[in-house]
């Protein structure tokens, strides 16, 4: 293992565990999880799906904003390796998606369009409950190394502890409430991205960076700032102005 990679791995864990201390933001944390996975592993893109109280999977975070990627991640509410992983509560490794056309016709077609040839789905487990799945997508056929999968699974476990932040929580009701909170927070973040994208003529990725930077520099939670922007209580000009002042935008 190169020194750089070791540092990267350590940093991923440190980042995630920092989120567990004090006032963290679940949307921020899960976004980071997918970014870390995308850069640490030999994959193209990562998407995290979280279940609501009825066991329906929703896209919670993704390392990519690209249309076709989002499409692919969201198809998995109805069909695909992540859904199967969630139901069976076991990892699913698909070295060659072409071989699975009969199993997941819609998903495989969408994957073909994007150019993904392999996928690994890992369950996000907490105390016997499965909260959701992490999907890792690659542009080449073949399995990920066992070490890489173990790394991804470890990152996912840290994240799952953070989502359900009440140590004593082991009843479905509390867990569901926490999951719902995460999913609702995510909605506000997507809306806030849209507000900024329109107001400053940005793409969604840049809008997210502006949002996150404002939250960090002002010591506020990402979800809270997002809700304020989407709810029109915080003017988008304030965020754009700040982005300019730190040379994030021209």
């Amino acid at each position: 293992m190169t020194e750089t990679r070791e540092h990267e791995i350590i940093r991923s864990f440190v980042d995630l565990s920092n989120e567990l201390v004090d006032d963290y933001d679940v949307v921020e944390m899960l976004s980071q999880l997918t970014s870390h996975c995308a850069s640490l592993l030999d994959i193209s893109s990562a998407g995290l799906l979280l279940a609501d109280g009825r066991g329906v999977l929703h896209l919670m975070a993704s390392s990519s904003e690209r249309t076709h990627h989002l499409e692919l991640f969201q198809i998995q509410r109805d069909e695909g390796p992540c859904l199967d992983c969630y139901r069976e509560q076991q990892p699913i490794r698909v070295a060659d998606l072409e071989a699975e056309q009969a199993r997941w016709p819609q998903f495989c077609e969408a994957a073909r369009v994007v150019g993904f040839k392999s996928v690994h789905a890992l369950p996000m487990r907490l105390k016997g409950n499965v909260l959701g799945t992490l999907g890792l997508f690659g542009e080449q056929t073949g399995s990920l190394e066992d070490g890489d999968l173990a790394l991804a699974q470890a990152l996912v476990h840290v994240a799952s502890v953070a989502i359900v932040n009440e140590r004593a929580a082991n009843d479905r009701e509390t867990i569901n409430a926490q999951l719902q909170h995460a999913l609702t927070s995510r909605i506000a973040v997507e809306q806030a991205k849209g507000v900024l994208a329109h107001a400053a003529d940005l793409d969604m990725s840049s809008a997210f960076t502006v949002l996150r930077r404002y939250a960090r520099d002002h010591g506020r939670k990402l979800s809270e700032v997002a809700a304020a922007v989407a709810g029109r209580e915080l003017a988008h000009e304030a965020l754009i102005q700040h982005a300019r002042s730190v040379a994030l935008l021209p």
Partner: protein
Amino acid sequence: MALSLDVMRSELNAAMVGSAPGTERADALCVTCVGLFDVDGAAVSLVLGGASSGTFGSSSESSRRMDEYQFTFGEGPCLDAVTSGTSVLAPDLDAPQEQRWPVLRGALLEDGIRGVFAVPIMITSVCVGALDLFRSRPGPLDGVALAGALLAAELASMPLLDLMNEARDLADREDAPVCSTDHLEDPPVEADRVEVYQATGMLISALGVDADEALVRLRAHAMATDQTASQVARSIIDRRLMLDRDDRGTTGDGGRSRR
């Protein structure tokens, strides 16, 4: 008898499809809830703030009355559910450890109600009200009933969207958005997409409206042009389409530069 979620969904959908938009639809949803979840009453309350709060639909007059207590007394599981955005469940109002809502508790117990369960109703990220279930015997809602109640709360957002359309005076216009029954099958699911939320945000900025109105307009445009909400959202995000204040879509040249 444990009913599957699919059966519950079909029954709830059937009830709503068979009724007129708005209050009638909300009432029909509530009546169906009573049968499905083994409760004695159900109501949909709207909590939009100020004068726009109250009981919107109910399974019976007595359920409506009980639901309205919360607004009279200013306390209750429904209001708490709306504030917190999470379900508030009170399986036994008469239990010694149940200390919440003293005034409301007294009134409900006198009316013979022992259990109250409130599930928040969301339109995108905003909680606009709650589905309230009342039961005369103590005890928790079982897992399947609770899952069904969450489903019913999602579906309850439809009649609330109907109401918002009316309130915005769009009902008189020729191309007024009406929540046609064709789209009732999976409306919350259909709109539950990342790109729909992003496009809603863009409309919030472009039109200077709130999130729920932005969503109504997006879905209205989708229905009027026979597209899915996701397709319209994608066009808005790609700058191929922008809705103006009169709900007419204008197709842009997509040529604005983007950083």
